[in-house]
């Protein structure tokens, strides 16, 4: 048991959220259009140093094309997605 933190319980008493085991927090997401760069500002990132990004196909049948997904960079509280030829969902997590 840690000396501080937070634990949340179900009505039956089962722990479902504990700062002992939770590692990353979801900050937000956006959709980058095909063939265009886009930047998105997450104000919350000004509070946080470490970021991890997940990219996923969205509205893009994956079987019949050379589908290039966007790549992402972070500059301060701005996440930029670019270089893809398909719509890309960008999910930002931080801790």
């Amino acid at each position, binding site marked *: 048991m840690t000396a501080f933190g*937070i634990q949340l319980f179900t009505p039956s008493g089962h722990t*479902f959220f504990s*700062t002992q*085991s*939770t590692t990353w927090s979801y900050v937000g997401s956006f959709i980058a259009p095909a063939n265009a760069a886009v930047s998105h500002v997450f104000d919350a990132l000004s509070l946080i140093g470490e970021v991890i*990004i*997940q990219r996923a*196909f969205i509205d893009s049948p994956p*079987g019949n*094309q050379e589908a290039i997904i966007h790549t992402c960079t972070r500059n301060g509280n701005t996440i930029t997605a670019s270089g893809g030829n398909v719509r890309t969902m960008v999910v930002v997590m931080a801790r």
Partner: protein
Amino acid sequence: MMHGITVKNTVGHLLISSEFECMHCAGAAQFVSTIASGLTSLPNYGGYSLLNGRHIHRYAITGNPADPPMFFIKPTAMDESHGILNQWSSSNQWYVDVLQTGATSQPPIVLAFMLPSAMPASGQGYGIATFLPNGRLAFDSRLRPLAIYHAQSVVPPAVPCNGGTPQSNDGYSWNNSTLDFDFNCNNKSNRYDMPATVTQDNLMFSAPCTAQAVYSRKKYGFKRSCSTYGGCQDHWSTACWWAMYHQAYRVNTGSVIAGWGMYAAGYWFTSNWEDGSGFLGTGLFGGGGGSTSTGAQPYADKTINLSENTIIVADARYYL
């Protein structure tokens, strides 16, 4: 920040903040159908059990088109690889296609996570909630917020085929169509450590199939038939097997496996011979040929999107 709530863990990682919205469990997405199944052999070529198999399962859940949910896969077959191929919205429904490897179709449970403001309020009267400065609900313990157990940037090996990079070679006998290459991908993966406090049976993960690849094996055959009268007739053949792959994942107790799953495959064959009808006026050798095909490969041999992407792992027991 003048007021609000911030929760950090013991090493200072920010876990809850009234400055941003958390994802919350909207329940299991409805299984729609298995839209593709099989691939235990190369279509049109045969060779029963040449391939390990793959299945594509489709799920749906009601949701705002402007707020894409995060989907988590809780495998039924924990030792098979899975991944999210694609998600899209239509008429206030979000759909997701999930890739599963293996000879047997075993649709996983798929859980959807959404912003709490898009979910109906819980009837429970206790817990903890945080709100953004604009009053929008950001965190509500009654709505089962997403507790991320582990997140890891991973990448699969560059070439998915168990047999390595397939070649295109000549020097084979005419009409040679014997496959001599292992297109399966179950032995091609990279392993990453993660904490082992949650056992494999309780893990679920969100992991997109972004890296993809197409590879083909070609055998060029040749025969020259020569007459005792001094003329010759040439024969050519090409046999081509191809497979398309998508990145796929497994989780074990204490590790994440980033590998591949087969998505599609095909075979085509051509056989031709030159017109020898003029040879000494014999008319013995007519030119011609034939072919068979199950469709062209989607693009030339290569791996694309081979860069690190993030798998998010959580404890499924909190949400099932």
